[in-house]
């Protein structure tokens, strides 16, 4: 089985998000980066599928040069090789543009499975996997909790809303978008980190894939949301703040 896992590098969760002077993106100097968390779960599922079925796990990642670090992390955890679609410019392409890049790069690989996280923690379009499936003509399922391979098909458990679930069977090849938390994530071993250095990373410049990175949706301005609700904030020493809060809950909200 050939299993592709598509991962994205995103600003780390505890990064301070400062909008740049043009209001177009963030001050990148402030940011540290990590693998998008749902993609980390997709990688884990891919590695476990390979352990069950044999074959190889290929990491697919579109991003600037710094994304190489996230690719190495995936290789250190056990992926076999990687494809890095690299762009030079500062870009935040929309889901269709990203999926077009991914589709063009992955087509020659003829994979059986493509796994990716259900959404990214930065732009959060939550669409790249579904769009990729449509572009490649693959079946897909989203928000997947369990993956049960069945020969040339797969049965998955999907999460619906309000605590409902559903099993769905699909023919291969297939794109699955993986929900966070479905398996426990592994750590890279020292041996894994060492081995990763010798694994193949094929770099494809985005410009060679014939997709205009700046097409599609335009974010005209990004900004901190303005508060519409008047929240009473208690600052100062924790003890004092706690005292003020309890007073309010008791005499104003009358809830304790």
């Amino acid at each position, binding site marked *: 089985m050939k299993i592709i896992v598509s991962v994205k590098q995103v600003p780390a969760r505890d990064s301070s998000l400062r909008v740049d002077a043009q209001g177009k993106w963030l001050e990148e100097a402030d940011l540290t980066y990590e693998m998008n968390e749902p993609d980390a779960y997709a990688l884990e599922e891919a590695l476990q599928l390979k352990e069950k079925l044999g074959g190889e796990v290929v990491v697919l990642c579109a991003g600037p040069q710094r994304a190489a670090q996230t690719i190495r992390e995936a290789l250190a955890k056990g992926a076999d090789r990687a494809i890095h679609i690299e762009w030079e410019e500062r870009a935040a392409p929309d889901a269709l543009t990203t999926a077009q890049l991914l589709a063009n790069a992955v087509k020659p690989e003829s994979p059986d499975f493509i796994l990716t996280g259900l959404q990214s923690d930065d732009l959060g379009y939550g669409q790249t996997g579904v769009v990729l499936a449509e572009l490649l003509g693959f079946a897909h399922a989203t928000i997947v909790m369990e993956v049960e391979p069945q020969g040339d098909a797969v049965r998955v458990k999907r999460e619906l809303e309000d*605590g*409902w679930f559903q099993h769905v069977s699909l023919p291969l090849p297939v794109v699955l978008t993986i929900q966070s938390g479905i398996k426990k994530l592994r750590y890279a071993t020292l041996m894994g980190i060492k081995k990763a250095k010798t694994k193949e990373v094929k770099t494809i410049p985005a410009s060679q894939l014939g997709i205009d990175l700046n097409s599609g949706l*335009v*974010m005209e301005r990004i900004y901190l949301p303005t508060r519409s609700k008047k929240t009473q904030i*208690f600052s100062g020493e924790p003890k004092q703040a706690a005292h003020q809060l309890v007073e309010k809950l008791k005499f104003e*909200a009358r809830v304790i």
Partner: protein
Amino acid sequence: MSVLVVLEQRGGKWNRTSFEALAAGQKIGQALATPVTAAVLGSNIDSLATEAAAFDIQKVFAIDDAALEQYTPDGYAAALEQLIQASTPKVVVFPHTYQVRDYAPKLATRFRKSLVSDVVDLKTVSGGLSYVRQLFQGKLNADIPAEGDLQFVSIQAGAFRAAEPASATNPIEQFRVKLDPSAIRSKPEAPYREAQRSVDLGAAPVIVSVGRGIKEKENLPVVEALANALGAELAASRPICDNGWLPMERQVGSSGQTVSPKVYFAVGISGAIQHLVGMKGSKTVVAINKDENAPIFETADYGIVGDLFEVVPALVEEIQKTKA
């Protein structure tokens, strides 16, 4: 030219967020000075179509086909593709549900468009319309100009007040689609709920909910002490349950329970939308978070910006003093 709102039903029951999407669609229609239509898909949906026709819209498209009895992305995308080709709307609006997330990007791709997902507001700036969507789990907003001859937009739950029926009887057009059942690749089984929940957070008057800010399972007693002092149920945001630190049945949010207690304490929870939809109905919300820009403070009535490991014990002490 029109705005087409796709309403969602399952097993003959509306997904109520459909009417929030309809309200957003009506606002978009006003901004673009264009009529609003609605679509309902399924099998044997006459009564739903009649209900939809009571809203303030131009007409309802009823797509009634045996192949749409159960939701599949192939079936829904094919049916709506045909409706869009025939009715040529300018904007197609969906509620941002799990189902929409499953097929709307596929549908938009057929027209080589990107879905503007998770829209929370509309803005009219110098005559032009922009969609406002969230980035970074609600920490930032982005304005996306409504451009192009065909736009796809999904509306976040809770962002618009649901439209009310206008007791009209607008026309219903039975829209026939050609669906090849053999082209529907996924075979869905019946949806189910996991074993009965032993904890019903929906009935709890006071809830203390904990998020990533707790850092480690070993730190849970810090918030347990607060729950005990308040006589509250302990709950959590998704990552805590994903890690197995608390059982899944204590999860509040779109994939967990929906709660509406008198007081909801959000401790170390940043307030991603998936969490907020589960607790928005709370009467009073108290947030404790070290990040003053955390979106939870938008929903909170009272907030303390600070280190929960200092604030929570101080709070426990104050509550015990009050109760003594």
